[in-house]
């Protein structure tokens, strides 16, 4: 492209530097150029190896995993077998967990969008008393790990006798300060104050203005808030573990833990289990529950790459 881009290449940069050109130096340059790429590729290869062998484990038998190498014999028919074992566990509990996860995660993420986008708009565009306090609390709660209030929240929920109910979990997931911050930044940077002024002179109410001016340009904020909220909710473990103690109320991430601990692989005393739960079945359980996250993850990648997303990986 332009000059700066050429200059950005280490090689071009070196060539421009004074006192270069001897063949030995050129060789050194080559090495210096290739080594970083080699390192990046090595790390990627390790990542791929880990992920691919894990996916392929669903196509293998436990005995193949034990006696053969990383890429032992595989059969597509193993998928059906794993599926049956998984479905047979505690009369289909796995599917109930998926359903529960879907309810609290979609519910929580949808609530997060509905609450965070107007709040972000309000904090960005309107001036009112308490605005700075709310902003400060938003940033503060956004950078704090979401596990920190789990036990206190449990005490609160059990005080009103709503343990094992899905709705309080969805409501808790609906509180998503990072989403409010994202919406705040979105509106502050993309909505000129003058547009609101014009609407106000026409006599529109503030809520009406939000509907007319802010909602049409909300798409990007909605997508990002939904993505982050959904991934955080779906993969959350500690909160549902505490709030939903009975087996049929659990979400899939807590259910996976039950699969591990009752599996014959890690608990030889569960001989009475009606299904065979070994690594292939566990891998399938982990991968199936990953699919919804994977879909939103790939969908959101281009939004993520647009720049530094503060707090994107909040614990």
């Amino acid at each position, binding site marked *: 492209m332009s000059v700066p881009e050429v200059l950005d290449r280490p090689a071009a940069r070196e060539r421009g530097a004074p006192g270069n050109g001897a063949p030995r130096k050129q060789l050194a340059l080559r090495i210096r150029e290739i080594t970083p790429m080699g390192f990046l590729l090595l790390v990627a290869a390790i*990542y791929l190896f880990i992920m691919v062998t894990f996916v392929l484990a669903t196509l293998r038998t436990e005995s193949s995993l034990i006696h053969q190498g990383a890429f032992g014999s595989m059969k597509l028919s193993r998928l059906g077998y794993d599926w049956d074992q998984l479905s047979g566990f505690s009369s289909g509990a796995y599917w109930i967990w998926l359903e529960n996860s879907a309810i609290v995660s979609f519910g929580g993420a949808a609530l997060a969008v509905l609450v965070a986008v*107007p709040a972000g708009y309000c904090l960005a565009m309107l001036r009112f008393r308490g605005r700075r306090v709310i902003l400060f609390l938003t940033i503060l709660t956004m950078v704090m790990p979401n596990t920190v209030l789990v036990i206190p929240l449990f005490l609160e929920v059990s005080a009103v006798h709503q343990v094992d109910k899905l709705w309080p979990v969805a409501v808790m997931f609906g509180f998503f300060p990072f989403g409010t911050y994202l919406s705040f930044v979105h509106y502050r940077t993309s909505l000129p104050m003058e547009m609101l002024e014009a609407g106000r002179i026409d006599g529109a109410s*503030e809520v009406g203005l939000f509907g007319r001016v802010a909602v049409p340009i909300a798409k990007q904020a909605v997508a990002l808030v939904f993505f982050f909220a959904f991934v955080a909710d779906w993969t959350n473990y500690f909160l549902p573990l505490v709030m939903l103690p009975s087996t049929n109320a659990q979400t899939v991430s807590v259910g*996976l833990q039950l699969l591990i601990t009752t599996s014959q692989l890690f608990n030889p005393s569960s001989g009475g289990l009606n299904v065979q739960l070994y690594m292939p079945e566990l*891998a399938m359980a982990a991968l199936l529950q990953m699919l919804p996250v994977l879909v939103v993850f790939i969908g959101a990648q281009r939004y993520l790459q647009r720049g530094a*997303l503060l707090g994107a990986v909040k614990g």
Partner: protein
Amino acid sequence: MSRASGENGILSSPGEQRVVKGEHFGVQVVAVAQRRRRGPRRRNISGLQGRSGLLLVAPYVALLLVVGVIPAGYAIYQSFLARTGSGFGGISGYKDAVTEFQFASSFAHIGLVLIVWLPFMIIGVIGLSLLLHGRRSRLVGGLRFIYYLPGALAGMGNFVLWLFILDPTDSPVKFLLSWLGYSSLEQVAEPAHLPVIIALMLFFQGAGTWILVIYGGLNGIPQDVSEAAIIDGCTPWQETRRIKLPLIRPWIAYFILINIAYASQLFLEPEVLGLATEGAVSPQWTPNQLSYTFAFQLFDVPAAAALSVILLLISLFIGVIITTRTGLFRNVE
């Protein structure tokens, strides 16, 4: 120039860029930001219109109270109750929590995890981001995607994956584990190894997304700064050390602080590893596990609440530092 500003920060516009640049070039630009801030405030102080607008923020404030402020207050209240049930117990809950013999060790474990994990994470993430940055190869996008992908398996999914890798029974890297002298999961997951195991698990699931964040920070460095450095004869290493790293320092500070806060909250990995090895790892290995034990095994609610309050204060402290000291939220006001 405009290219650089487009990549700086999420959804940023030229107006925002001015504020962000304030972090790099100091006083003068900050003043611009402040002038921008003061303008609208004078124009619409509440009034009837303004008050109807508050309906927009009300649901959020309600949730902030119900899910954030009230439980925190309720935990503080509970922490001062007597263990027997109702009635004021003074600081007996705190005494129970602090004098529990696992209390100090659980915090020591967090320290150990941080010692192993933090340098691994910092060097890994910043190193990979720097190596990726400034490389125009088509491969870069693909590499970034590969690093980012395990994030979709975060949490229990990632844990199952690492059980598969680390259990010598069916690991795809059996040769490596047997070369290290391990033949059972209990041997691999002995408590002394936990910091390394947790570091591996957390790096694998989290590094990719952080690389996107730091990479985005590097993209935010104005091109004219890099150009000037190269014209002045900077080697790539000097450019990294003297220009890139200092300019992305706020992001690095944020990254480190948030990861410390995250580590102080560890629960899943040691908990489930303990369950899978039938007790090779203590069920009170981290403070959160201890708090969980107090609440659900010992039914000592005041002690559980007291420990939660202590953990909350630690997070709060780190949160306040991030909010007020890193400079990342300076332009928010």
